[in-house]
């Protein structure tokens, strides 16, 4: 960025992403946009999703054509206000491109997965991005997910904070022993992780089952939780969509799994073939089917959530915000959650159960602002 000129570059969504293409520009040159507005559809090997603006501005130049595969970090477009001359934009573009170096692939550099051993011997995989010294965020995914669930969030938030995304037991690269398998057992694992990773306290961001863990931790170990952001959280109401849970567990074919995964999204087109393949690959790993079943039986026994903590929101000692997807089909979109001054609730239209993936720009901004405020 220089003199009010803002570079919009190919984002890096997940460690494995090295290139992507603009499938379509959804903004015209010359148009004004605000932080969080969708400006392009980006297609990668794994997923197609909207690129949301991280600042406000006027779109002055679209640098890449649609359907051109370019490396991560490539200049896609230039934003600036109307006082900046076209010559200055030209100079910015040529300067950027002259100095642009394609990032090395993951094998050679950049962040890598880490592992810690919990006191009970289980192994937890995590990914740490961003610099220490300031607030630390710990991100906890939901049932059947893994740390890659945060691919649209962790890279952006790590520009501002140290951000650690972990794999819950039974998921991703962590041990497949889920212990008791319920919300208490899962949040105990997160607590054990904080101990093992030597994190005194963190801003916990949890999605779905991970949201229930974050809430459980905030209630039981408030001294370890600087703030909690619950995204489409479980743990607030007894209802849970067992068509999704059972469909996810039982699906062996891509078509069956697609039907289950589409329930997660407001826009079912976000379910890509690669996403389906990744989940099928996860479910084939030794111990995973048993782990998923154990969690479902403990946390969602009889088709109801075992841990319902909505009444306890008023007892919370730590700042908490709840982000709901207005078209969530997995957990109920509750009304009147603002039972206490410390609880902030946002309902995002156009998002299903995965608001952090469907509206990453908005969710990232909400998390960043909330963490900054809570860090006082």
């Amino acid at each position, binding site marked *: 960025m220089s003199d009010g000129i803002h570079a919009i570059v190919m984002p890096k969504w997940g460690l494995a992403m090295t290139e992507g293409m603009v499938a379509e520009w959804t903004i015209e040159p010359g148009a004004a946009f605000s932080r969080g507005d969708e400006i392009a559809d980006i297609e990668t090997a794994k997923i197609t999703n909207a690129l949301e603006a991280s600042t406000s501005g006027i779109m002055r130049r679209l640098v890449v054509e649609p359907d051109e595969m370019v490396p991560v970090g490539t200049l896609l477009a230039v934003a600036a206000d109307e006082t900046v001359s076209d010559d200055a934009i030209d100079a910015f573009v040529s300067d950027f491109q002259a100095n642009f170096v394609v990032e090395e692939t993951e094998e050679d550099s950049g962040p890598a997965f880490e592992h810690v051993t919990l006191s009970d011997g289980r192994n937890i995989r995590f990914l740490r991005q961003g610099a220490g010294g300031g607030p630390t965020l710990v991100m906890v995914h939901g049932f059947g997910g893994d740390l890659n669930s945060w691919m649209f969030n962790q890279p952006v938030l790590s520009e501002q904070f140290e951000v650690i995304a972990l794999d819950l037991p039974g998921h991703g690269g962590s041990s497949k022993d889920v212990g008791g398998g319920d919300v208490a057992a899962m949040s105990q694992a997160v607590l054990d992780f904080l101990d093992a990773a030597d994190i005194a306290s963190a801003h916990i961001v949890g999605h779905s089952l991970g949201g229930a863990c974050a809430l459980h931790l905030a209630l039981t170990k408030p001294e370890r939780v600087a703030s909690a952001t619950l995204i489409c959280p479980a743990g607030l109401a007894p209802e849970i969509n067992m068509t999704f849970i059972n469909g996810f567990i039982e699906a062996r074919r891509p078509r069956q799994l697609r039907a289950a995964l589409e329930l997660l999204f407001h826009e079912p087109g976000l379910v890509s073939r690669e996403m389906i393949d990744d989940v099928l690959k996860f479910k084939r*790993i*030794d111990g995973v089917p048993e782990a998923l079943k154990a969690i479902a039986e403990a946390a969602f026994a009889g088709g109801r959530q075992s841990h319902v903590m909505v009444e306890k929101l008023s007892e919370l000692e730590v700042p908490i915000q709840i982000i709901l997807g207005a078209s969530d089909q997995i957990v109920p979109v509750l009304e009147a959650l603002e039972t206490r001054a410390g609880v902030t609730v946002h309902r995002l239209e156009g998002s299903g159960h995965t608001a952090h993936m469907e509206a990453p720009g908005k969710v990232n901004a909400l998390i960043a602002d909330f963490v900054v405020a809570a860090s006082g």
Partner: protein
Amino acid sequence: MAKKSVRQAINEALASEMRRDPRVVIMGEDIAGGMGAPGEDDAWGGPLGVTKGLLGEFGRDRVLDTPITESAFIGAAAGAAATGLRPVAELMFVDFMGVCFDQIYNQAAKFRYMFGGKAVTPLVVRTMYGAGLRAASQHSQCLYPMFTHIPGLKVVIPSSAYEAKGLLIQAIRDDDPVVFFEHKAMYDEEEEVPDEAYTIPFGEANITREGDDVTVVAFGRMVQFANQAADKLAKEGITCTVIDPRTTSPLDEDTILEEVAATGRLVVVDEASPRCNMATDISALVAQRAFSALKAPVRMVTPPHTPVPFAADLEDLYIPGPAQIEQAIREVAA
């Protein structure tokens, strides 16, 4: 997840199952020391290094170098399987099946049936197949149709490193004799493969491309060529569903029939000699059970009915490639 070669993926599958189950033993020519090597330190790990390192971890009791007598060690492996071990025998080239075929097709394949279901034969025969390495006509064939023909055998043809690891672990845990085909030109091909053990069920085809116009069924190394052809044609607006059946026995007939019903057009790609191969088998299946869905004649992409040539130019011409597949798709889509 790291990128691993087909060679590493197979090695990991063997190591992981040997750690998990002490009954798993491996045997074959040169898989331990071999080649007159003096000791454990310079173990070759087979002619292409697939079993390298296993001798050091598991020792001579479980990593058995055999004499160059396929009839003896394949027979020994079948007997060991019938009496409590879970052997993985390496038949260096599938072209050598001729000298040990009785042990496979008339012994191992029949035990369960002949003993009224009271015997199981958890035997895996790993074997190298395929053209492309200038190994001439006696070391380059794709003989999986001959094993597919035999009731009682399961036949697996992995198409990539990820597929190889999951399918081999599944094969080792299976209680029936499995013949596992490794394409000799694919050992260095890499893709992301999980470190953990995982299994891919037999008889469940993988759909590697989804499209509306033509269904392409391909086996083993031909899957990547079919994908390449499909990707190229997709840019012109001809979209293909590409099916990798993964196993020829059991065969996922339902997926093939469903996808042919959806597109109405079929191309089958098979590196095996064209008479009585998987291409003719799939074509007959579709002709019998999905004829009314067909909008165009079925096309088969195969090599010519000749021995695999040794001359490099001729061998290159012999092997079906993306260009022939693309042409066949264009013809049925026209």
